[in-house]
C-alpha cells in the first residue's frame, strides 16, 4: 500500500481524497497556489507545497512544479482528482516516467478515451450502442446519405472536444457547410485540432451514466447509474441515483455491455461511461477516465467508498467486490452549490461572512468552505455538494428540500434558491425531465 500520496487538486475534492487517505493511514501532501494559502485542503494535509501564483495555468496545471513537489516530498502516488490534469495523458505519462503511481488508468488509456472517435470505435466493437455518426466529412454525397438515414437535425462535434466547444446543431441542409467550417475554426482554437465529425442530434434525451470500477487484474464491476439530466450549458447541476426511468432489465443489460467494453482494453481504476437515453435506447457519448464530481450519490446507494477503492486498485490490489455483492439500496440526490447569482448566474467570489451547514440523518456535505474563508475568483464556482439519502426517492427529495432551507451561506451569492425551485418543480418530482430542463431559466 502507498505510504504518501500527493493530491494534485484543490477545494472539496482535495478534501474528499485527503479524508480517504487519512482513514487508510496514508500521509498526504497538498499542493496549492498563492491564492489558496488559507484553503482547507492545505490546513488539513500532513505537508503542503506552493506550486505557483493564483492562475490555474501557473499552479494546478503546472506539470513541472507539481512533479518537483512530488519528488521533494517523496510520495509514491499522485491523485489528480477531477478537472485540472485528471485527464491529461501527458501528465499521467510523466508521472509514470518518474516511477510514481498515477491514481487512475494508464496514460495510453486516457489517450484512447480522450479521442471521442477512437472511444466510440472501441464501444461499437463491444456492442455498446453509440449515437449514429459519420467521421468522413469531406464527401458531401456520404453526408447526404447519412442524413437521409438518420434525419435532421444532426450535430457537428470536435474530436478532441469537451464543455460544449466546437459543437454546432444543423437543422437545415443548407446550413451544413457553414456549420462544419465554424465548428472546425472553434475546435482548432480551443483544442488545437480541427478534426470534427457528424452525429444524429437527439432532441429530448436524458443524460444517464454508468459507474465502473476495475482493478489491474481484469476484474470489473458496475455500480449502477446516475441521472445527470439537470444541467446548464453542459455543466451538471443535480444528479441522482438510481434513475427512475430505467427498468432493472435495462440496467443489467447495459451494465453487461459496459463491463465487456472496459475489460476489452484492460482499463483500470474508476471510470464513467456517459450515455444519452431517449425512447428506451442508450447512446454512448464518451468515457470519463477519472473520479467524477457526482460519485457521491453512487457511494450513498451502494455503500462503497469509491475513493478508497480507487486507491486500493491503483496500489495493485485485487478488487474486494464482486458484481453479486453490489446492490442498489435507497435513493440519493446531489445538488451542486455554486457561488453565483441564482437568476443571472453571474459568478460571486468573495468573503464568506457566515456559514451554517445542514445536518441530520441522510445529509452529507462535501465542501471546503468555512466561516471567514475568501472564495477566490480564479477557480470553479462550485463551493459545496449537498447530498441527501433516503429510503425512497420521495423521502430523499423531502430531505433535500429541508436541507436547502437550512443551508446558510452569507457574503456571496449562491444558487441555493435555484435548487429549491428545481427540486420542488412538478417535472423534477415526476422524474421525467430531460437535458433541456434548465433552458426555462435562461
Amino acid at each position: 500500500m502507498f505510504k504518501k500520496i500527493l493530491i494534485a487538486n484543490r477545494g472539496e475534492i482535495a478534501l474528499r481524497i485527503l479524508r480517504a487517505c487519512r482513514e487508510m493511514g496514508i500521509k498526504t501532501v497538498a499542493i496549492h497556489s498563492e491564492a489558496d494559502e488559507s484553503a482547507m485542503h492545505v490546513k488539513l494535509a500532513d505537508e503542503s507545497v506552493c506550486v505557483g501564483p493564483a492562475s490555474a495555468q501557473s499552479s494546478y496545471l503546472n506539470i513541472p512544479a507539481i512533479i518537483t513537489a512530488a519528488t521533494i516530498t517523496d510520495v509514491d502516488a499522485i491523485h489528480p482528482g477531477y478537472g485540472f490534469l485528471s485527464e491529461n495523458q501527458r501528465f499521467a505519462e510523466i508521472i509514470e516516467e518518474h516511477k510514481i503511481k498515477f491514481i487512475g488508468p494508464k496514460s495510453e488509456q486516457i489517450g484512447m478515451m480522450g479521442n471521442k472517435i477512437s472511444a466510440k470505435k472501441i464501444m461499437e466493437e463491444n456492442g455498446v450502442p453509440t449515437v449514429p455518426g459519420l467521421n468522413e466529412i469531406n464527401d458531401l454525397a456520404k453526408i447526404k446519405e447519412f442524413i437521409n438515414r438518420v434525419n435532421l437535425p444532426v450535430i457537428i462535434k470536435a474530436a478532441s472536444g469537451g464543455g460544449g466547444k466546437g459543437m454546432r446543431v444543423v437543422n437545415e441542409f443548407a446550413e451544413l457547410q457553414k456549420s462544419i467550417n465554424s465548428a472546425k475554426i472553434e475546435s482548432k482554437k480551443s483544442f488545437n485540432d480541427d478534426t470534427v465529425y457528424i452525429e444524429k442530434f437527439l432532441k429530448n434525451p436524458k443524460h444517464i451514466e454508468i459507474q465502473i470500477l476495475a482493478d489491474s487484474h481484469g476484474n470489473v464491476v458496475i455500480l449502477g447509474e446516475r441521472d445527470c439530466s439537470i444541467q446548464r450549458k453542459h455543466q451538471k447541476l443535480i444528479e441522482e441515483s438510481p434513475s427512475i426511468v430505467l427498468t432493472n432489465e435495462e440496467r443489467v443489460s447495459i451494465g453487461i455491455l459496459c463491463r465487456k467494453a472496459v475489460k476489452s482494453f484492460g482499463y483500470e481504476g474508476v471510470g464513467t461511461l456517459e450515455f444519452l437515453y431517449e425512447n428506451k435506447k442508450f447512446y454512448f457519448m464518451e468515457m470519463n477516465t477519472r473520479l467524477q464530481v457526482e460519485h457521491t450519490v453512487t457511494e450513498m446507494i451502494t455503500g462503497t467508498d469509491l475513493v478508497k477503492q480507487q486507491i486500493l486498485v491503483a496500489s495493485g490490489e485485487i478488487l474486494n467486490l464482486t458484481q453479486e455483492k453490489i446492490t442498489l439500496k435507497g435513493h440519493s440526490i446531489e445538488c451542486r452549490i455554486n457561488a453565483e447569482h441564482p437568476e443571472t448566474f453571474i459568478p460571486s467570489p468573495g468573503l464568506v461572512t457566515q456559514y451554517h451547514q445542514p445536518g441530520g440523518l441522510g445529509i452529507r456535505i462535501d465542501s471546503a468552505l468555512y466561516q471567514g474563508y475568501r472564495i477566490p475568483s480564479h477557480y470553479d464556482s462550485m463551493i459545496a455538494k449537498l447530498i441527501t439519502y433516503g429510503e425512497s426517492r420521495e423521502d430523499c427529495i423531502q430531505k433535500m428540500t429541508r436541507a436547502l432551507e437550512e443551508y446558510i451561506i452569507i457574503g456571496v451569492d449562491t444558487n441555493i434558491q435555484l435548487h429549491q425551485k428545481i427540486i420542488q418543480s412538478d417535472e423534477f418530482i415526476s422524474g421525467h425531465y430531460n437535458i433541456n430542463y434548465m433552458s426555462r431559466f435562461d
Partner: protein
Amino acid sequence: MVGVAYLSADPSTPPFSKVGQHVKQGDVLVLIEAMKTFNEIKATKSGIIKKIVVLNSQPVEYGDQLIIFE
C-alpha cells in the same frame, strides 16, 4: 465584479475599446474573467472614451474604475 480584466477577446485580436473611440450603449468594453467564465462588461451609455484605466490581465475588484468617458 471581482476577477481578471481583459481588453480583447483573445491575445491575437484587437482590443474592444480605444481612447477617442465613440461607443454605443451596449457595446462590449472589457471582459472580466471570474470563476472560469468570461463576463462581458458593456457600456451603460453612449459616449467617447477618454481614458482606459484598467490594464490587460489585471485583477479588478468592486468599485474599481475601468474606463473613463468624456
